[in-house]
């Protein structure tokens, strides 16, 4: 079935197939006329059977047969015995069609349809399936149908699990069998069936089982797929967890607009805000739904009703997101107040896989709002900056200063009870790590290295609240470096992973983070000099991550990297200054995460590759082309302002229209000609500077 070379047809074969086509055409013509006239006589029905035997792909014929059956069943003289015999005839037709092509969608579907009528014996079905699954053990049609039949006859998952085991023992290169195993185990675990009560008892055996396959033949991919599923089952906690927030627990946040520096406040927790509100950000370990004013409550001195509008931060327009934001308004220009946020004390936060958030947690922080003079404030926020090396100097932290990293740790420790409950996870990962180290000591194995890298990162992440840093990150980086050399085909993926690990490493400790913290100073600067600029430039990053530790960042320099995407950046709600110059962004649509950054004022996307390629390939990198949101929110008002000049830049229009940029640098992109620039000015009326030029 698999791996058989195709033979060139011989002349006599060609003649035979021509004759077959001739016959088929004649049959088809006759059949269509019966179908058209709704003739369901014995002769007509038999003709369709003949047609299907030659060509099982004829959907129309299958549908015709369904109509014929329905027609017959609606006859008054129809008794139970004849119903059964009519349906049995259908099964026979399907069987002979399947013998012709056992991968015919139409035939399998028709069989399901007949079986669903509930008049046929199911016992025969398993025997039939055995035959087909013996002929091709990986035929996914048969496996699909098997699941259908098993459900119909109430066959126990345990029995089916045993069946997958038998199939795997016959030949373990069987994606379908492994897949079905994962489906069955999920069902059993969910049901909490006897012997499947706890993952920690079930998974070790499965690990043991899959190791046999992986070690026997590490080049076979099917086993690795199952291993990946097991790894996911081990790492992912059922119940979602809150991993990070802004403001962090116990922090003192200064919200200000002018340049006066208040010595007692750390620049890490000083926020410039011009909207009379500040964001509260919740960062979960997996996408959740149901974050709203009843599941997350606020207690503070200045907002008595405690109602907050929580917004999911996801690029697709789904109602589930890993990051949620709400904006808390402060009514007076000056304020000193503490705020308490209670997450999940009433039920309703639920993961996309259907698990409740069940670790109610509370965090509180103090807010100090400083008097803001309207005029100077606007100037300061709008202040232009020059992304020049000489304008940045390394930040020297005061010894007592609270760095967001530290408070992040505290938050995690509060979830400690979860950590002890998941000791088995850590143990399982440790075992796996040992196992694959051994495999790699024997042989060079790409997927083995990749798995080890994933395991080590998962292990570090799991033990993070207790360990002060990521102990394995150097080793993981080395593994990805190796993989890039070993497997150039997947270089981009390894590079992405390498970037993510690098970011995790840099953000994992206060010391390493401070090495990237700078303060901006130029000849005319004022207020922004008090802020921290996180500089992650020149690191050849191809992807960014570790957002949960970067929620506090307002000024971010990512220039001189190899970014093709800035996916996930929408989580950094405080960003006002963003440097993306000298990267590899290839299209305007790559900027989509920026649409969610309401406080972004200064953006540098100079010297990227926007407009280099006429076809925007990033569109096809998202989960489904249909899920892409561009153009889905067109409203009448907007249609009105799209004039001839903008028609050519519809994508730019959708991406940028919601941004409140004051300064944009776009020079050095193919797209950035004069017409485009003049379109930009129309799209973003707030723009003050474009490529260093002050606009009127």
């Amino acid at each position, binding site marked *: 079935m698999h791996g058989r070379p195709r033979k060139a047809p011989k002349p006599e074969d060609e003649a035979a197939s021509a004759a077959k086509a001739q016959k088929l055409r004649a049959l088809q013509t006759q059949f269509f006329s019966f179908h058209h006239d709704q003739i369901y006589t014995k002769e007509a029905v038999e003709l369709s059977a003949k047609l299907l035997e030659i060509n099982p792909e004829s959907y129309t014929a299958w549908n015709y047969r369904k109509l014929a059956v329905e027609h017959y069943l609606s006859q008054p003289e129809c008794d139970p015995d004849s119903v059964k015999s009519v349906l049995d005839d259908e099964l026979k037709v399907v069987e002979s069609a399947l013998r012709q092509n056992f991968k015919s969608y139409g035939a399998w579907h028709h069989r399901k349809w007949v079986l669903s009528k509930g008049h046929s014996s199911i016992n025969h079905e398993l025997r039939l399936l055995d035959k087909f699954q013996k002929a091709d053990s990986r035929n996914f049609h048969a496996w699909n149908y098997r699941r259908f039949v098993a459900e119909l006859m109430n066959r126990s998952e345990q029995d089916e699990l045993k069946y997958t085991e038998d199939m795997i*023992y016959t030949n373990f290169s069987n994606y379908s069998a492994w897949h079905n195993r994962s489906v069955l185990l999920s069902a059993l675990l969910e049901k909490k069936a006897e012997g499947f009560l706890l993952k920690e008892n079930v998974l070790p055996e499965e690990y043991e089982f899959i190791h046999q396959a992986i070690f026997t033949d590490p080049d076979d991919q099917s086993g690795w797929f199952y291993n990946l599923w097991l790894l996911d089952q081990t790492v992912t906690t059922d119940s979602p967890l809150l991993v990070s927030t802004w403001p962090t627990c116990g922090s003192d946040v200064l919200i200000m607009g002018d340049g006066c520096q208040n010595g007692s406040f750390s620049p890490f927790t000083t926020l410039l805000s011009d909207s009379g509100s500040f964001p509260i950000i919740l960062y979960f370990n997996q996408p959740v739904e149901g974050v709203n004013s009843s599941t997350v409550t606020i207690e503070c001195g200045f907002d008595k009703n405690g109602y907050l509008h929580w917004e999911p931060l996801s690029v697709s327009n789904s109602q589930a997101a890993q990051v949620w934001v709400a904006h808390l308004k402060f009514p007076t220009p000056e304020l000193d107040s503490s705020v308490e946020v209670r997450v999940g004390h009433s039920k309703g936060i639920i993961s996309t896989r259907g698990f409740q958030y069940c670790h109610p947690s509370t965090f509180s922080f103090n807010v100090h709002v400083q008097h803001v003079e309207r005029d100077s404030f606007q100037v300061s926020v709008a202040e232009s900056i020059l992304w020049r090396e000489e304008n940045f100097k390394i930040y020297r932290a005061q010894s007592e200063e609270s760095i967001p990293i530290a408070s992040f740790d505290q938050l995690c420790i509060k979830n400690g009870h979860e950590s002890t409950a998941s000791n088995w996870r850590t143990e399982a990962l440790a075992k796996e790590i040992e196992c694959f180290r*051994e495999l790699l000591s*024997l*042989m060079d194995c790409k997927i083995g290295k990749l798995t080890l890298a994933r395991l080590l990162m998962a292990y570090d992440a799991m033990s993070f609240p207790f360990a002060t840093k990521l102990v394995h990150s150097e080793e993981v980086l080395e593994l990805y470096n190796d993989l890039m050399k070993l497997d150039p085909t997947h270089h981009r993926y390894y590079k992405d992973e390498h970037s993510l690990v690098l970011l995790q490493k840099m953000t994992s400790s206060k010391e390493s983070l401070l090495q990237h913290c700078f303060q901006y100073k130029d000849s005319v600067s004022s207020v922004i000099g008090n802020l921290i600029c996180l500089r992650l430039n020149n690191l050849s990053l191809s992807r960014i991550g570790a957002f949960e530790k970067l929620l506090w960042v307002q000024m971010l320099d990512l220039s001189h990297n190899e970014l093709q995407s800035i996916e996930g950046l929408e989580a950094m709600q405080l960003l006002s200054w963003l440097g993306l110059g000298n990267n590899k962004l290839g299209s305007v649509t790559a900027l989509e995460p920026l649409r969610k950054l309401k406080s972004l004022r200064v953006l540098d996307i100079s010297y990227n590759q926007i407009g280099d390629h006429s076809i925007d390939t990033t569109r096809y990198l998202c989960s489904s082309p249909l899920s892409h949101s561009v153009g889905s929110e067109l409203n009448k008002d907007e249609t009105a302002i799209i004039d001839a000049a903008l028609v050519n830049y519809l994508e730019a229009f959708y991406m940028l229209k919601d941004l409140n940029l004051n300064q944009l640098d776009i020079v050095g992109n193919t797209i950035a000609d004069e017409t485009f620039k003049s379109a930009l000015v129309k799209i973003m009326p707030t723009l003050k500077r474009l490529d260093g030029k002050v606009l009127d």
Partner: protein
Amino acid sequence: MEDIPPYPPIDPTTFDLIVIGTGLPESIIAAAASTASKSVLHLDPNPFYGSHFSSLPLADLPSFLSTHSTSPSPPRSRSSEDSNEFSVLDLCTRPLYSSIDISVFSPDLLDQNSRKFNLDVAGPRVFFCADKSIELILNTGANQYMEFKSIDATFVGDNKGNLLNVPDSRAAIFKDKSLGLMEKNQLMRFFKLVQGHMAGEQDVKISDEDLQSPFVDFLNKMGLPPKIKSFILYAIAMADYDQEDTGVCRDLLKTKDGIDQLALYNASIGRFQNASGALLYPIYGQGELSQAFCRRAAVKGCIYVLRMPVTALLVDKDSGCYKGVRLASGQDIFSQKLILDPTFKVTLPSGSSPPSPLQAKLPFFSQKDDRGKIARGICITMTSLKPDMSNFLVVYPPRSLFPEQATSIRLLQIASNLAVCPPGMFVLYISALCNDDDQGKKLIHAVVNILLTVPPINSESNAAVQSETAESGCAVQDENAESSSTGPSDPGEGKPTLLWSALYNQELTLGQDDFICSTPMPDGKLNYDDLIDAAVKLFKKIYPEDEFFPQTSSENPEDEDDGDGDGDVSLET
């Protein structure tokens, strides 16, 4: 053979070829010669087909063995009379079996069923699904006279009575419970290396230097652990001698041959749809194979006469060349060529000196080769060695049972579903190469004692016991006692009880093609390939101009039976 019934005379009296003995090599040559349009007379002194390759009823086996164990009967006087034209050289049999030891522990049970047994005289022996013998069977159409069944598994035995699975395929390695993960990985990588090498992949080519080196050195070089090495050498490549002791190893396997053997094994797995493993066994026993070729020969016009001993050779007085044979019936039959089975030995007429040309040739003919012997054992039990399995092979690698064990001991268990014994019984065939009778006995006993419960010999109820040497009987008892005191596995409990056993040593003779062509005795190999090679060689010797079973394309005029179509053997599932 005292009362030979009177025979009608054979007509015609002249043939191209006379073949004496219906053992496998003789039968193949008879079939090949008939196919090459030679007139062939095929004789056998026995009333059954197969000679030393036959499968016999229980009651007949001891007498067959003992007939061939006695010293040659004195030449019959009447056949030594020289006629005018010929010298008459008396043929006598030479002893081929020695140290025969039949033990009956359950006479009633076995007597009732004697005819239901088909016991292989030259067991254990099997086919590899992809070996030469299967090819030959398919090419010649002999497959239409036989049916096969797959041997379920191969095990390696240890000195504690455990049977370890031999992970001989990808699926078996995956499934194996006794191998560690690392061992699985190493073994599978080695298999892949061999497969890659056989497929001619450039990057996995094994160097010529390695190919010429001893296989065991190559395995060491590949870093394979001792357990896996032993599996590969003795349970897959089926090496006979201890490969790691050059002192006792008479046949050091070269890497090239080892790889070929592995490739054969690999090609055997999955060759036939119904055969799960690499090995096949014929239903009704291996005697079927000789018979199938005889039937093939008969279809092509070969004349068969069983129960017809040959008493003498007729030799041209002047040239010393072979002319014909004298039958026990007294008839003289003439032929161009003669093939003898290895039973025979020529004795010179007493007192008379042979014709001078013959004298020069005879030393070769009666030459005794020094190939040692093969110890064989047949045991019958009521329970399987493995509760859930009926037909399987067990290999005891050298030194696995006792330190001086220099050769592999192989055991084949066959159940009633292969029609070799009554339902509910099992036949175990055991063999090992040895230098002499004592060594042979020790090897077979070691296996019997570790796997079976041997009931005490009760001399009253066992009138049939023909224990030749008192010592060997004692040895059984002794070693049994020893293993029960030291072995961790509970002896007696769970071990099948021995009902009947026949232990014997067999001479190993090579085929000869000098003065007279004679075929070899069953060798010590597990399959038939070397015997088939010997048969081909003999055929080429006598008929250098003729093709050995010419390929008859697809049309097979002799397919008078339904003909399963070529390329497949009939396998019962």
